[in-house]
């Protein structure tokens, strides 16, 4: 029976992917892709990767969905012009042949994966106790491969700098995104008042259980960012001007704490990002606590986009 569920999931995800690629209407394709992201969450659960499912649900289903659908709705008027630029049949056949070749090569790789599968689960299990955290994924993210996580937080910041740098000169330092008109008695304002308190609790909960169970700062921060965006979209609070010092400090605080602890590791434990014996868990908690608000700010501002409005005085 579980085989039928798996096959159904695989067929559904493939069907949605085909739709997202071949649909005539761009908006239809984008909506199909959002559904695809939500469905992928179920597949991660079937692959026993609940931490990944949480990330996919928060990012793929929430933030990326809002980003893509918002863009598709705004770019509707460019639809007709783009259709005329469609490449000719020979190029499309060539692309199909190339894509089929890549698929075939990957399929061969999947079918000839080594048995027994190589795994680092034993090593992780052997060393996870030394970090004091119960969730092996958190141990990998913040102890064994902490460098990846640090660089990831910095990549997010760079992406935000990239987005900001798209601002026209006159709007530099101003508020990002269009001004939202608030309707204080509207349905949207109602959701934006009721949902964020619940969302903040859920976000904090997902963050907190991350030490021992599936969850963690990325997933928690994504939910917080989504709640902030909801309040902004409803017009209950405006996006902050990007020149504000507190905003920039908040953005870099998490990575700075991470880097500081990394360098402290050079002095106390002999390597960058190494933790002294017995201090691993408190240090991991400090990093997570510092990183989460910065990540939430960064993710939220990434979605709002480039500054568009010069501050009015």
């Amino acid at each position, binding site marked *: 029976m579980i085989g039928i569920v798996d096959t159904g999931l695989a067929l559904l995800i493939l069907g949605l992917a085909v739709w997202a690629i071949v649909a005539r209407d761009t908006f239809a394709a984008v909506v199909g892709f*959002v*559904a695809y992201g939500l469905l992928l969450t179920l597949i991660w*659960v079937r692959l026993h990767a609940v931490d990944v499912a949480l990330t996919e649900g928060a990012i793929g289903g929430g933030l990326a969905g809002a980003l893509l659908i918002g*863009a598709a709705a705004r770019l509707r008027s460019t639809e007709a012009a783009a259709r005329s630029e469609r490449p000719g049949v020979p190029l499309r056949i060539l692309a199909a042949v190339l894509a089929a070749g890549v698929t075939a090569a990957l399929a061969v790789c999947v079918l000839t994966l080594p048995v027994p599968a190589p795994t680092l689960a034993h090593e992780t299990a052997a060393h996870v106790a030394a970090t004091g955290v119960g969730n092996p994924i958190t141990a990998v993210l913040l102890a064994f491969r902490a460098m990846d996580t640090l660089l990831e937080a910095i990549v997010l910041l760079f992406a935000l700098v990239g987005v900001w740098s798209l601002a026209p000169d006159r709007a530099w330092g101003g508020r990002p995104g269009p001004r939202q008109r608030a309707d204080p008695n509207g349905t949207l304002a109602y959701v934006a008042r009721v949902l964020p308190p619940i969302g903040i609790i859920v976000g904090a909960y*997902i963050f907190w259980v991350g030490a021992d169970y599936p*969850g963690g700062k990325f997933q928690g921060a994504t939910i917080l960012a989504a709640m902030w965006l909801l309040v902004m979209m409803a017009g209950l609070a405006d996006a902050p001007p990007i020149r504000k010092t507190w905003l920039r400090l908040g953005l870099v605080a998490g990575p700075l704490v991470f880097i500081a602890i990394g360098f402290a590791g050079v002095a106390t434990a002999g390597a960058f990002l190494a933790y002294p014996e017995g201090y691993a868990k408190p240090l991991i908690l400090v990093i997570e606590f510092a990183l989460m608000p910065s990540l939430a700010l960064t993710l939220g501002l990434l979605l709002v986009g480039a500054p568009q409005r010069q501050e009015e005085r």
Partner: protein
Amino acid sequence: MNEFLLVAAAFVLAMVALGLTRVLRGPGDADRMMAPLLLGTGGIGALLLLGAATGADGVIDVALILAVLAAFAAIAFVKASEETDETGSEDNA
């Protein structure tokens, strides 16, 4: 018992798939926006049934995240379409 829950999950997934074939075809953007809604209810139902059947822990938390963010994509759509309607960019949807 688990077998029953799996059958239920498969059935709900089939319903979601059928519903998707309808809403993605449109005709309007509003129809298409029902696809995330459909996944919000059907997807969460199937996820909970699947989690209960296979005993994987943490699945309830995944459903919780999906439920909190279920409205998010649709709200972004509503705001963006309001914006384009106001600026008068003609869309013959």
